């Protein structure tokens, strides 16, 4: 048995199929995964994401430290509550993890890492933090709920009384703030509007119940994956990892090259990769024939089979199978994918596949 979040008993009572995810027992789906997907695209759904790692960096050297270990530049964060998406790289320019960092104040930044990478992330930051006057703290007994969908903000804010209700509704995109014990950010992993709520484990069952009372339906990891795939959002461990750089993972936009003097870990290697020219890039594929694109299927471009699907599945919004694939840079408008020994046609598209509930 894996680790359990504070909402584990709720998932079981609600009939969830539980699966292992990065060492945690998490809900895969409560009923139909496709219905859960549509629930988020058309109304509002909630996800238990308490397995994610919340880590606080505090002390006078925090900004200097984060300038060094993140490929994006935390100097873009100057307003309290503002969030930034970034990769954390090894010296070779490959990706240790992707994460969101929040600026709380000049002596406090909050980071949300992935669940499956928790141990190596903590080891990495602790190792590199030694010369800095800074503390790394994992707040104990935390839980996290994501509420997503076109009606997510309205339904989630209805759980609270005024004046907090109005303040939560007024949160700007990619911004967070504390409301009592609840740290609420207008972020997510579905391509829909909504919130992510970090809160004490002791309160999470009450908040979950209150959200359910407002008609926010529980959504499992299965739909979370198809939602983020349609939204064109990468999954660490599938679309990038310690063998790929951000430049061939569709994440070049997250690397802050300026100012040139900022010597972040991985910069030298990444500059070499950039000047040598990357041979591969991450693209979107839509399958034009019957079947389902799956992770690790071979992608054939110009007769060569050196492309690979990094994340594939069925898109409920498009009614077709879609995927991210790492393919040679000179890929044209279409390619072939090998499914069970047969080559089938796929169209190469720009990401995302869907936005605001509709195919793009």
């Amino acid at each position, binding site marked *: 048995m894996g680790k359990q979040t504070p909402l584990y008993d709720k998932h079981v009572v609600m009939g969830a199929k539980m699966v292992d995810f990065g060492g945690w027992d998490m809900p*895969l789906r409560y009923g139909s*995964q496709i219905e859960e997907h549509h629930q988020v695209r058309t109304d509002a759904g909630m996800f238990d994401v308490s397995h994610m790692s919340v880590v606080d960096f505090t002390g006078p050297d925090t900004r200097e430290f984060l300038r060094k270990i993140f490929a994006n530049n935390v100097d873009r964060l100057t307003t309290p509550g503002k969030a930034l998406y970034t990769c954390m790289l090894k010296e070779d320019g490959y990706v240790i993890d992707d994460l969101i960092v929040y600026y709380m104040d000049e002596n406090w930044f909050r980071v949300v890492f992935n669940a499956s990478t928790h141990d190596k992330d903590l080891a990495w930051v602790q190792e590199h933090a030694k010369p800095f006057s800074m503390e790394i703290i994992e707040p104990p007994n935390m839980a996290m709920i994501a509420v997503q969908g076109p009606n997510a903000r309205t339904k989630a804010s209805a759980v609270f009384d005024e004046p907090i209700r109005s303040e939560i509704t007024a949160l700007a995109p990619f911004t967070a703030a504390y409301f009592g014990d609840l740290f609420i950010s207008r972020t997510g992993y579905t391509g829909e509007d909504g919130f992510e709520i970090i809160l004490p484990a002791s309160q999470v069952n009450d908040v979950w119940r209150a959200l359910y009372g407002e008609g926010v339906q529980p959504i499992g990891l*299965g739909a979370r994956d198809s939602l983020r795939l349609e939204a064109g959002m990468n999954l660490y461990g599938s679309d990038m990892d310690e063998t790929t750089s951000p430049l061939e993972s569709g994440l070049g936009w997250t690397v802050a090259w300026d100012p040139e003097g900022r010597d972040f870990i991985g910069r030298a290697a990444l500059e070499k990769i950039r000047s040598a020219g990357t041979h591969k890039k991450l693209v979107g594929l839509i399958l034009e024939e019957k*079947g389902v694109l799956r992770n690790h299927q071979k992608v054939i471009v110009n007769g060569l089979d050196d492309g690979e699907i990094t994340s594939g599945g*069925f898109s409920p919004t498009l009614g077709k199978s879609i995927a991210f694939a790492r393919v040679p840079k000179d890929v044209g408008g279409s390619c072939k994918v090998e499914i069970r020994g047969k080559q089938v046609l796929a169209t190469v598209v720009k990401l995302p596949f869907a936005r605001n509930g509709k195919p793009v």
Partner: protein
Amino acid sequence: MSNVPAELKYTKSHEWVSVDGDVATVGITDHAQDLLGDMVFIEVPDVGANFNKGDDCAVVESVKAASDVYSPVSGEIVEVNDDLADAPESVNSDPYQSWLFKIKLSDASELDEMLDANAYSGVAADDSH
């Protein structure tokens, strides 16, 4: 508990079989569809194709994974359910009406090796825990 009709025969690999004369109608069980989740694509065999017992002869793809369907008996495919191409989800909603293929038995004695509803319920229960 999943639905296991008493009048059908079953395999350990979660196919159900209904026999009429020398033709067996084959689908996947309620337990199997529940494990796999929402069906999104079903590939049936070609009419006229021959299979030995245990050969993979069809594929059911759910949101979760692609799974082979094995021929429960040896014989020749005489009919396939083309309706599943446009309505794979019927395997979820009505697994015992949503047959995949009909196969003409080449050795009727193979039916004796199949599980009855009682034995299959035991297999399904073991595999849920």
